[in-house]
């Protein structure tokens, strides 16, 4: 494996920066969502605490990639985030669906109107990314039994698929009232398929296609940022009543996940 350096930063430093930003957008949406629930369960503070630690560790890792304790801290924070995300998934499943009136009989309803089921798994995925980054910074060429580029491609494929499913169900709730709401179900789906293809049998040709799709996914993420901002502003009073409409409008940070995943894929393609 030959790692390239871009703007004097190695691939795992770039991944650490992307990790910090990706966890940042998750942090924001978890804060808004749990604040809306008035932090009814104390465990709703957990993603904020763990997210803060992951962001700090990732920033430190980007700035000091060769310091051993920083790498260890990043790995520990990563496992912590992974476990916290799984616990959150259990909470969202039980309290957001099972324990609600009619429970699983109204599964689709609660998928749309209950706590977003797959969202905590995004924290798990950021935790796993932290573990991958820590392994890379310590010089490992394999992670989770796969070569580093393959592992990152699989990571992008699986997490992007989860993000597409979550976006799909929530955009379905919004009745796809704007044609742009189909965007997360368009190119990113092809990106998932090509990511799997590249992971299975990488070649110059499919990596080029993968890179084009990743750039497109990145721009779709930024389009999502703008459209979600517009969605918030379409509410009564718009951003002049910011706190209320932030809680009622589309989640502002979520499109950032598409940007972050595209960034991870681009690092895998260009720098690893």
């Amino acid at each position, binding site marked *: 494996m030959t790692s390239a350096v871009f703007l004097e930063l190695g691939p795992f430093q770039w991944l650490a920066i992307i990790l910090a930003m990706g966890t940042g957008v998750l942090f924001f949406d978890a804060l808004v969502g749990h604040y809306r629930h008035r932090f009814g369960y104390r465990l709703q503070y957990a993603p904020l605490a763990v997210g803060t630690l992951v962001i700090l560790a990732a920033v430190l890792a980007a700035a000091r990639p060769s310091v051993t304790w920083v790498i260890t801290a990043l790995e520990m924070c990563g496992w912590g985030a992974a476990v916290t995300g799984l616990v959150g998934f259990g909470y969202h499943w039980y309290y957001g669906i099972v324990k609600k009136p009619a429970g699983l009989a109204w599964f689709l309803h609660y998928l749309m109107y209950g706590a977003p089921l797959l969202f905590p798994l995004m924290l798990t995925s950021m935790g796993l990314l932290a573990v991958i980054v820590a392994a890379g910074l310590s010089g490992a060429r394999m992670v989770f039994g796969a070569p580093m580029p393959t592992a990152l491609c699989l990571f992008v494929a699986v997490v992007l698929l989860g993000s597409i499913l979550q976006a799909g169900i929530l955009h379905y709730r919004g009745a796809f009232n704007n044609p742009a709401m189909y965007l997360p179900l368009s190119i990113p789906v092809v990106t998932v398929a090509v990511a799997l293809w590249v992971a299975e049998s990488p070649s110059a040709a499919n990596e080029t296609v993968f890179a084009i799709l990743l750039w497109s996914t990145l721009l779709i993420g*930024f389009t999502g940022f703008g459209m979600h901002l517009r969605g918030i502003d379409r509410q009564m009073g718009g*951003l*002049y009543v910011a706190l209320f409409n932030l809680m009622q409008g589309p989640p502002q940070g979520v499109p950032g996940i598409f940007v972050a995943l595209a960034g991870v894929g681009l690092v895998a393609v260009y720098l690893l």
Partner: protein
Amino acid sequence: MEGDAPITTYRQVLSVAKLSAPLHPISVHFTVALLVTSVICDGMSFVFDVPSLSEAGWWTLVGCCLSTPLTLLTGLVSRMHLPMQESVARSFLRAHMALGPLVFGLLLVMTLWRAARWEEGQTVTLLYLVAVIGVSLVMTLQGYLGGELAYRYGADVKESYRELPGHPPQDQRPVLLSRPLARSERPEERSTS
């Protein structure tokens, strides 16, 4: 300061200095000007093969990309302080808000592309120039929408206007009345009489 008398002392200068200027219409000029400068420098470098212009093109694009988050942030802050009911102006505002993050995404992509060329010690290609001119056109549209808001509707800047001497106030904030207006006091009656 007494009325509209000319300013003659430094104390009067300080008293009219207003530091609460709307920041978004100011910061947006950095994004626009730096991108345009970058395109011009890179274009001239491509045509006339001048390495220093290529360097200028790269560093102005870096400045553009770094200043744009500030532009986005000040835009959000401006919107949060701007009451606006449903109207044509708000349609402009919504389009402006939707396009803003996309413009930043496009700038980010162009900066990474340009960085790769710069790091390899190469100047820009024709394809890059075509792409960055495309991004500039999107930026132009975004600037037009913002210009409509600021210059036609006075969004964000109107509250900072001072009235020229001899000109009656054009727009006054509505005030709560303690009693209903008499017929002769109503604006529509005054305009017809």
